[in-house]
């Protein structure tokens, strides 16, 4: 078989993940544009591209930095954040730990350190300080460690943290999930165009430091204003709502400017992270790398218990982006078919010649 045919057969298998996580269930009307732009830019299935990058960058004991968290009612309180982002971060952290032995260090605003920690625990990872996580990874007793640390809102402080982390830890990859990115003017905007720079941790500082040192980077988003979308800035300018600022250019629009090496655009940012976890599970041929429906339920319920709100409805509850718990559970259920859970693909390969084949084998045995 020619190698390009073989690679396209592989890509078709992974393409299914992209197709599932980009169905526009909430009918937001944005994901089609984002996905097509990202797909044109990268030229292959997005979750596959991201998972391969993470697989190449990470190995046992190496650290993955995962930035998430969106404080999305800052006019009320900085302690209010949304349920889209943290579950994706926890699921991907779990997948990278289970699949590659990586040590996840999650970066969120200090106001949501406690809630984020609860969500990580729901995913099965025990949160300790970064140095303790490193020790736990090398120790004898079984522990699956992770760390949740504060990402400063002040740009300079965030830059200092980034240098400190990269000096101290063996960082193999950087991921941002549903994390506001800075535009050319250094402003972070909501998808509606509102300036929310002051409320958010400055993940761009960490992204820039990682890129300067050659650490592979991935952004996951669903609206066009998140870190990762810088990769398709030009493709979105003028086409995405609020991509053009008051000066008539995209410099102060919603689309960030910093580029990442990989980008996943999904209907819900969490789903993008789940898709990357599914792709990694497929690449490693290890179904356990992708979380289960039960874990998904536990994670979303932990979000509600920790006070995260659904960013669309504004209610505290196990929903995300206006989609109820069941929708997320069903989505995870279908993703699990890609790791052969609940699907008998072997039967298709033989059907309906199966009886004859079985008969032939039986005949052989008899001889």
């Amino acid at each position: 078989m020619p190698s390009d045919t073989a690679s396209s057969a592989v890509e078709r298998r992974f393409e299914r993940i992209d197709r599932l996580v980009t169905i526009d269930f909430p009918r937001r009307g944005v994901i089609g544009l984002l996905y097509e732009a990202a797909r044109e830019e990268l030229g292959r299935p997005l979750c596959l591209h991201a998972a391969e990058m993470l697989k190449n960058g990470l190995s046992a004991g190496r650290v993955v930095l995962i930035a998430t968290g969106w404080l999305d009612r800052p006019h009320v309180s900085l302690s209010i954040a949304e349920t889209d982002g943290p579950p994706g971060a926890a699921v991907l952290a779990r997948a990278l730990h289970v699949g590659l032995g990586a040590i996840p260090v999650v970066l969120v605003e200090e106001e949501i350190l406690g809630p984020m920690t609860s969500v990580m625990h729901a995913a099965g990872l025990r949160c300790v300080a970064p140095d303790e996580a490193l020790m736990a990874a090398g120790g004898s007793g079984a522990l699956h460690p992770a760390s949740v640390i504060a990402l400063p809102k002040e740009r300079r402080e965030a830059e200092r943290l980034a240098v400190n982390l990269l000096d101290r830890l063996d960082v193999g990859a950087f991921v941002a999930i549903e994390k506001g990115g800075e535009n050319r003017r250094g402003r972070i905007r909501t998808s509606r165009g509102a300036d929310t720079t002051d409320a958010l941790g400055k993940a761009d500082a960490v992204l820039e430091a990682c890129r300067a040192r050659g650490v592979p980077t991935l952004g996951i988003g669903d609206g066009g204003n998140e870190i990762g979308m810088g990769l398709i800035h030009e493709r979105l300018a003028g086409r995405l709502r609020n991509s053009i600022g008051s000066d008539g250019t995209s410099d102060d629009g919603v689309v960030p400017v910093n580029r990442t090496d990989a980008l996943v655009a999904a209907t819900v940012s969490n789903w993008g992270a789940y898709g990357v976890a599914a792709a990694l599970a497929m690449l490693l041929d290890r179904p356990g790398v992708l979380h289960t429906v039960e874990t998904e339920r536990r994670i979303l319920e932990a979000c509600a218990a920790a006070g995260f709100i659904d960013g669309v409805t504004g209610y505290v509850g196990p929903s995300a982006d206006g989609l109820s718990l069941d929708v997320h559970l069903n989505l995870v259920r279908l993703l699990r078919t890609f790791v052969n859970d609940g699907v008998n693909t072997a039967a298709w390969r033989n059907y309906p010649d199966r009886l004859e084949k079985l008969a032939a084998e039986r005949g052989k045995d008899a001889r």
Partner: protein
Amino acid sequence: MLAERQDTPDLSLYECIDRLLSIDFPEREVIDIAYRAFREYYGLPLTYLAARALASVERGQLVLIATGFVNRPKVDTIIAESDGPVGAAVLARAVHVGLGAVPVLLVEEQIIPAMIRILHSCGLRVLDLPNAKKCADPSVTMDAAAILASPTDWSAAEEQARTLLHQESVGAFIAIEKGASNPQGEILFSRGRICTPTVGKIDPLVRLCRERGIPTIGIGDGGNEMGMGNAGGILRTLLEYGDPKYNGGIVPAQETDYVIPATVSNWGGYGLAAALAGLLRNPSIMHDEATERRMLAASSFEGLIDGVTGTTGTSSDGLSEDVHAAIVGLLRTLAGDGLDDIDWPGRDASRSGDRS
């Protein structure tokens, strides 16, 4: 661009439904080819076109729904599969709830007991046709369907079709996972083996419906079912077993007006129900996960098999019960159930906030 949108209906719902139905979860490697070919030919979402045709059915009219695949004939002709009858029951429920139509199922005689139990599991009482017709009147408060045996004999099938169309007011015809004759007069399994003698013959009925302008819809997943011959038989050159060297090729000669290719034929039925729910803005037209599980259990109790694995469990087409329930749940979401107060920019610009 916005002005254009106001003139043409928003079809994004049906795009979503089509997409969900056509992801190749079992890696059968047929659906990508079939969907792309038919979508290109018809130009619009396929569930939309079929639902639009179905929506023209008037209260009290019959909707004929043919299904059933006897698929281990070498072992015993009583063996049939669960893919098809469950989707047919969902469509029967949908046209009754949504349109006040009288659903009439056409299956091979030996499948009738299973069809009865599946229809009962989805809320429709099986009655004789004259009594089922009484239930189109909403004041009767009775959800019902009728079943007719579908003859495997060609002339008996032709006779039944003529009689039905002469005596009854038929609003639409749907075939779901129903074998149909290729240009050589043979009905084939999806990999080219002949199964002509065991299949209830619906080709004459489709031909007569089309002659009378009654909309016809075909739903399939393998390329050998009624509907898969559409677009001038384009699948003949695209599918491996479409090649005439396999007993004339699996692709049927008779075309239907509309077609829904799906990863699993049942899902095509669910997708059509969801599209009708969207079109008529009535989510209750789409069945729910509890009903789905009940129907799969009924299939198992009645001895219908998973056509891929050959077991009488609650799986269908090699996919576990949970997978089917998840598809149903997500289709319900698309049909408008479980979306809490969606408030994205562009959907309702009057509201604002600091959302991400």
